[in-house]
């Protein structure tokens, strides 16, 4: 309180000291509804990233759940069908070269309309069939059905038998082959094989099958990463401190700048330092292509506000902000090879401000002198969502180099001090680092 020597001023202040007027009815209801509206908006900022995270997690679990997969057929495997002896029943089973349990196959004709005649009578024929497929085709070309040479049945190749389908008609057309469907025809007379359906070797590259052995290790991995952006100056009004929006908390630093710059009107320039972040991430694959990640992040933000020069004098406010954060991420490997891979990741990052300091420097005709320091506390949490696309290159056996680029969106900025994030809530994110597979 200043000691006033103006009696008129004292009179005015005394008159209005206890001046009260009833506000209009309904004012409190309006205030309450606006407060609740703000809570709902803030809740959405939490709900949307949480929902995105839960969705990704659920999708990952769906992929993780075991499902039917077409049986692999090893290279040059053959299915030998031996016609059952008269009066017996026989089922053709898989003669797969791998260790998977045998399953019944049915053959269908290829797209070239291979036909085979079958009769219901006559002695059964031995049919030698080799499944074949071109890597790009979804169909197995129709095998030529020809009398098979006499051969001893391979132990374990045949299981219980059922009568093969036999028709009285001259030809029964076989439609399509697929690797998991094969019907047995044991014709008495078989037409000459069609050259277009000549047998070709089966390769392991059947459609739907993995073409390379599984590369993803199920072991933990530890990553150290560094992220930064190019620094820039901000001269556009909407990116500096201003009195028009509340996208940051009003604290002693912003208040001091407001007083010195006539409510932010006399800000000459705001320069933001490149945000720098370091992190330690722990990853654990939980499905063939999915991994969950978490860890610890450190981020430093900084900016300088310069006031308009008046009478050869101006001030600079340099503010630095430090955050410690915990990311929760899901990573999906788009491509995973021995030498490297490509992935996408979705993260929710929760950060807490641990240091907030402003130093003030006055300049008179270019000469600087310290003018004060302000230390503030940062309350609340900074939340953000990061979506990124990354690539990884294996350097040594368990060590790889990775880099990723993405977009990071920041929420709950009104609880946080002014920074580059409140100037604009979405920023590109670039990170690179080293990943070590632990065993």
């Amino acid at each position: 309180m200043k000691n006033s020597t103006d009696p008129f001023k004292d009179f005015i202040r005394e008159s209005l000291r206890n001046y009260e007027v009833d506000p209009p009815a309904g004012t409190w209801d309006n205030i309450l509804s606006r407060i609740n509206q703000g809570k709902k908006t803030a809740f959405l900022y939490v709900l949307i990233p949480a929902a995105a995270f839960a969705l990704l997690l659920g999708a990952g679990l769906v992929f993780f759940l075991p499902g039917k997969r077409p049986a692999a057929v090893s290279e040059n495997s053959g299915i030998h069908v031996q016609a059952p002896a008269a009066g017996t029943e026989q089922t053709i089973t898989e003669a797969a070269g791998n260790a998977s349990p045998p399953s019944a196959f049915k053959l269908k004709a290829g797209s070239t309309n291979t036909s085979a005649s079958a009769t219901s009578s006559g002695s059964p024929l031995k049919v030698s069939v080799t499944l074949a497929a071109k890597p790009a085709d979804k169909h197995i070309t129709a095998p030529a059905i020809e009398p098979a040479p006499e051969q001893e049945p391979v132990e374990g190749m045949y299981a219980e038998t059922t009568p093969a389908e036999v028709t009285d008609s001259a030809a029964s057309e076989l439609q399509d082959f697929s690797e998991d469907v094969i019907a047995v025809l044991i014709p008495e007379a078989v037409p000459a094989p069609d050259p277009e359906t000549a047998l070709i070797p089966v390769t392991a590259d059947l459609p739907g099958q993995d073409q390379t052995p599984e590369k993803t290790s199920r072991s933990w991995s530890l990553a150290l990463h560094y992220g930064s952006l190019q620094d820039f100056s901000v001269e556009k009004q909407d990116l500096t401190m201003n009195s028009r929006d509340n996208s940051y908390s009003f604290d002693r630093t912003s208040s001091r700048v407001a007083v010195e710059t006539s409510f932010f009107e006399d800000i000459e320039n705001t320069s933001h330092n490149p945000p720098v972040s370091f992190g330690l991430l722990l990853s654990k694959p939980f499905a063939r292509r999915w991994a969950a990640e978490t860890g610890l992040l450190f981020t430093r933000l900084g900016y300088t506000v310069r006031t308009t020069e008046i009478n050869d004098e101006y001030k600079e406010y340099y503010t630095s902000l430090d955050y410690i954060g915990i990311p929760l991420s899901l990573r999906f490997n788009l491509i995973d090879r021995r030498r490297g891979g490509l992935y996408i990741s979705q993260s929710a990052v929760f950060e807490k401000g641990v240091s907030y300091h402003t130093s003030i420097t006055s300049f008179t005709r270019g000469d600087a002198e310290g003018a004060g320091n302000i230390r503030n506390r940062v309350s609340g949490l900074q939340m953000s969502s990061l979506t990124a696309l990354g690539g990884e290159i294996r350097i040594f056996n368990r060590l790889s180099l990775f880099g990723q680029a993405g977009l990071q969106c920041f929420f709950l900025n009104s609880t946080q001090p002014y920074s580059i994030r409140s100037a604009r809530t979405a920023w590109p994110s670039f990170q690179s680092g080293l990943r070590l597979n632990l065993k």
Partner: protein
Amino acid sequence: MDETLLLKDCLKGNVQAQKRLYECYARKMFGVCLRYAPDEAMAEDLLQEGFIRVFTRLGTFRNEGSLEGWIRRVMVNTALEYLRKRDVLRYSTPLDEDAAIAEYDEPEAAGRPGPDLVARLIREMPVGFRTVFNLYAVEDYSHKEIAGILGISEGTSKSQYARARAWLLKRLPSENTSN
């Protein structure tokens, strides 16, 4: 009412506590808003906006002074922000800096005008005079501080106050006489 306990409950988001805080200070703060706003409707908007900021930023109150003083500052800042948006403060009328401030003879207690009259007359002032007058005479800011807040020169602040004071003095005795 235990102010500390009330603050704690408000910070927790207790609606009842917030309503108690509002009921405690709403009448006084509406009086503050009426002094800055051009009309009652705008004063109500300023009151609502001010209290929302109070509840939003209550965590920044550091107990450096009274809660009423802090709420009043929030209300005044809200009003000033509104006035800046309307760009009604960026004018100045040159005035002879050496002009003497009119002498004021403090009336006897029985003849003093009441607060309602004083407040009404302040509201009737042109907005530029009114803002400087409120900040200097009522909120007790210095002319240097007012110049920084409003983005005007110190001389302009002094001259605006002098003119506002003279305007009010001219009306106080005649109103008082008529009453």
